[in-house]
């Protein structure tokens, strides 16, 4: 089991969501984040430009079974890329254990719904 955490552009969110769906990732958590980086985002208030280093991104996080990891990563890279600076990053880590609260199932069994 792997945990995949990706920081992506908010504007690419719909594309990434659809691509993940095609890669059989149907459950994930996301939240909006603000970060500090090299990129400057300008804002105009009352005719003055304020340059800020506050950068708005969205974090997607999910745990998936090992055999789906590569296709999920590829899906994110393909759909989240615009080619410009600031497209984001993907982090992958191992997960020790996973338990479905409703049934008590453990391991990869708890990550998907059997037909």
């Amino acid at each position, binding site marked *: 089991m792997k945990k995949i955490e990706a920081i992506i552009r908010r*504007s690419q969110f719909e594309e990434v969501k659809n691509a993940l769906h095609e890669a059989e990732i149907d459950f994930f958590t996301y939240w909006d984040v603000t970060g500090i980086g090299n990129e400057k985002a300008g*804002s*105009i208030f009352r005719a003055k430009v304020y340059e800020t280093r506050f950068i708005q991104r969205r974090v997607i996080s999910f745990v998936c079974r090992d055999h789906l990891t590569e296709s999920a990563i590829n899906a994110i890279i393909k759909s989240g890329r*615009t080619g410009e600076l600031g497209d984001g990053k993907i982090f992958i880590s191992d997960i020790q254990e996973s338990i479905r609260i409703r049934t008590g199932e453990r391991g990869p069994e708890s990550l998907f719904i059997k037909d």
Partner: protein
Amino acid sequence: MCMNSNKFKKAGIILLFLTGLIGKVSVFAQAVVETKPVIDTGSTAWLIVASCFVLMMTIPGLAFFYGGLVRTKNMLNILMQCFIMVAVITLQWVMFGYSLSFGSCKGALAPYIGGFDWAFLKGIGINDVSPYFISQSTGRIPHLVFILFQCMFAVITPALIIGAFAERIKFSGFLLFSILWATIVYDPIAHWVWSTDGWLAKLGALDFAGGTVVHINAGIAAIVTAVVLGKRKNYYPGAGIPPHNIPFVVLGAALLWIGWIGFNAGSGLAADGLAGSAFLATHVAAAAASVTWVILDYIFNKKPTVIGIATASVAGLVAITPASGFVDVFGALMIGIGVSLLCFYMVGFVKPKLGYDDSLDAFGVHGMGGIWGALATGLFASPLIQNYKGLFYGDASQFVKQIIAVVVTILYSGIMTWILFKLTDKLVGIRASDKEESIGLDLSEHKEVAYTNVD
């Protein structure tokens, strides 16, 4: 419906001349003063307030109604579009819009367009009496107040179309299109229906406060622009894109309801019984439409929704607009119930089937509501209110006249909107790029965000 004040001036001069001949000047001079059109301060005060009410419908009313319905990333774009409409169309109106709509020109074109006699409001003095009046026997308000009142109508009409192309239009394209549309579509139709020379006015088609001129006109333009512009990214018919702030939608709808009282009750151009009657009809229709929608929501969706009642109140107000000065409470009730049935069906069932992306239902509510209202005027016009009879009071010809006015407005507005929209597309481009649309028009068109994270 309207007469020119010149007739009264001429009558006054002739009277004065006769009195001079007879030699009893002092006695008759008094009579002459009384028959001359006099500015009535009560009516003037009401029309000034009503003008403010109608302005309030566009900003903040419509701005927040539409703004709440879009996604966070397009909020400012909607507010900006509504705001700029107020500013730009006001200038267009005093420059030549008023003259094209309510002026008169000589020759064969007179029934179709107003000409440029009143361009830049040339020759209109502060004490001139409005040449237009409805319930009184003569003009009672200053001409300038009439111009202002009508200015607010010219402002809100192109602003209504914003609902159709929201979230995906380029700002420059929108601006150019709206100015062209106000000049080439709104002004002529206002002239046909409301001007003394207008051919639909002479035909006898009834439109008290703008069912054809404002709502059908904007509603048809909405469907045309929505279809030409295409769907938003990630829009799936039937699924919809959720609104970002429902309290704003309610705030906007409430401001529209209040403002609409100025819109309709002001359209009698006097503070009198007809204004009160129009107020009552407007209020009752909005209430009836709201209740009907809530019942429909109970039946089809199991729960009464807040967006539902907000939409319904606007639909009711749209439908009663052309009829408000002609129907009694019964007519208003029927119009309110009818419009909710129609719009609920349009928005809930027809739109997902046809698959066009009218973002905020400008066509479903204003177009369909306006068509129903204009036709219903021909059904329910009561001789107890003004001297017009609808189909249900024994005059079928009134209904036929209403059908003619509706069909003509639909055709003219539809065709001209299509031409102007295509023209704008050629000149400056009309659709925002995929990237701009994804980022959101707030940031890509205005370089601002609505709910800023800068402390």
